């Protein structure tokens, strides 16, 4: 790969000797690029700090008991909060988790243990990877086409849309961590006369559990922050939800709606809701990290 030619240009080879001088061009270039890389790394982390500072400053100022317990204010009203949106977000994420985790785990068991090299496993692995890069809004459009047209906007439809987005993350993470379980352990279990399902339930799943839980936590965190698919499926509501089959509020849609309003009160609430949403997402991310550290 190197274009250093040692044979044809003796003077050149003299200059590129192993002895390093601090002020030759190549050392200076290297130093300059190193400085630039440091600069880029620091510049790249500025947005995160800026977002966090703004959230704490703008959102923290407004985050009080009223914000957490009251309903969203209308137009010129002062005060108000987003309690219904917090509940809605949690309910829809729970529905999504209840759908995607069992299906995802079973699919991962098939991909990792039962038949890893079959054409079906290859196809569904590839599809799962493709789905991770799938625009989240299309999950909403899909659920709209399947559920909303027939049953109307609802928390269930929102949960299904989020489940479509969670599924690939759960599958791929669970497959990866089940594959990490040492072959010797499963061999030993088979040697003791265990059936395949006994090996899976008693050896593979408990051993791979930290990795599986990490994947689930990350999927939940991602789903909690999603907004685009909820525009089409759960819509929004200014009231507390009383049943699962009615339009439901969520934090992300509340932020989206309020951010464009010309009222300061709503914009302040949007910041406070963002702070709550980011805290929810971060809690799941930190949980994922903590669980993931205790790996096999």
């Amino acid at each position, binding site marked *: 790969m190197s274009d250093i030619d040692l044979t044809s240009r003796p003077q050149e080879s003299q200059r590129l000797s192993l002895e390093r001088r601090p002020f030759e061009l190549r050392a200076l270039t290297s130093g300059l690029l190193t400085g630039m890389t440091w600069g*880029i790394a620091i510049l790249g982390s500025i947005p995160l700090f800026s977002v966090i500072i703004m959230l704490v400053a703008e959102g923290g100022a407004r985050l009080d008991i009223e914000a957490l317990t009251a309903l969203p204010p209308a137009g010129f009203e002062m005060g108000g909060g987003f309690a219904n949106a917090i509940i809605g977000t949690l309910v829809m994420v729970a529905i999504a988790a209840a759908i995607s985790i069992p299906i995802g785990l079973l699919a991962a068991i098939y991909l990792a243990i039962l038949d890893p090299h079959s054409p079906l496993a290859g196809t569904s692995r590839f599809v799962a990877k493709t789905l991770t890069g799938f625009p989240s809004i299309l999950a909403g459009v899909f659920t709209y086409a399947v559920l909303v047209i027939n049953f109307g906007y609802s928390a269930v439809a929102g949960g299904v849309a989020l489940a479509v987005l969670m599924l690939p993350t759960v599958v791929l993470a669970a497959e990866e961590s089940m594959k990490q379980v040492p072959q010797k352990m499963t061999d030993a279990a088979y040697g003791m006369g265990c059936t395949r399902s006994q090996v899976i339930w008693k050896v593979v799943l408990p051993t791979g559990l930290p990795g599986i839980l990490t994947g689930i936590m990350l999927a939940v965190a991602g789903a909690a922050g999603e907004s685009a698919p909820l525009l089409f499926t759960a*819509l929004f509501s200014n009231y507390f939800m009383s049943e699962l089959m009615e339009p439901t509020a969520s934090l992300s849609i509340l932020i*989206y709606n309020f951010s464009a309003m010309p009222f300061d009160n709503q914009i302040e609430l949007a910041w406070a809701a963002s702070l709550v949403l980011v805290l929810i997402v971060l809690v799941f991310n930190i949980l994922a990290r903590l669980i993931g550290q205790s790996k096999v």
Partner: protein
Amino acid sequence: MAVNPFQHADSASSVSGPPSGGDYLADSIFRIIALSCAALIVVLILYILWEIGGLAFPAMAQHGLSFVSGTTWNVGTQEFGVLPEIWGTLYSSFLALILGGTFGVAIAIFLTQDFIHARLAAVFRTIVELLAAIPSVVYGLWGIYVVIPMLRPVAEWLHSELGFIPIFGTELSGPGMAPAALVLAIMILPTVAAITVDAFRRIPYKVKEAAYGMGTTRWEAILKVMLPTASSGILAALVLGFGRALGETMALAMLIGNSNQINLSLFAPANTLASLLASSFPEAGQIEVQALMYAAVVLLLITLIVNIVGLGIQQYTVRKFEGKA
């Protein structure tokens, strides 16, 4: 006669007994359930294509390819064309890719090429991953109240001094291409960085040692050995990052201005397919919904192609370094 010590071995529930017929049955039922869940994932994507395609069909039949080349979106006259949105989607993603790609690859180099202590690198990697964890809609809010005000004086200066160049051709009135692309770049940076870090990690350590052994400086090793070796992985990172950018919705819907026009200027408002869907759908009537579904099909096709290309390159890279997976 004493009690038979092996008596308990007769019961099928005993640990040392052979699996009973019931165990085998449970085993095959379990296998079938797991298999159908794996198949469900494949069925799911086919079903998604079928459903969205089905809803879009009336609009596809009516507008045909003129939908893709048309430039007006007028519900009153039922004229629907998404060329400006396709342009906006590709242009914003391309700008984000240039910025987010440069930063992402540079940060991956920073994290993997011994610039900082391994423990510090882990902390920094966490910071980059947290960038990915922040919800899109929060970036949108941040963009409106932080990025746009910050960008405005810069944009004014660029427009007044360099306005003759088309990309600075208009003033920044508020939302527009530049703030949208900037936020989009921040959002794809973690994707690009993570996949590029993987690509660098796959290179055997000996390769770098050999380069240093030849007397290269750190940057000669990076530019002439590490980057070419990791090139296919980096390409995959860039393509997948581009795919992410194409599908991003909320931040763009809040920042890009939702204006149906094709303009080279960085400061002009524009629109993307995803943000057209997000902003028009809630109030759309039946005919407009069909047209929007057609737009969703266009977006689906573009992102599917880009993602599949990216995954293909990534798999090729893995195979190159690790033999057949």
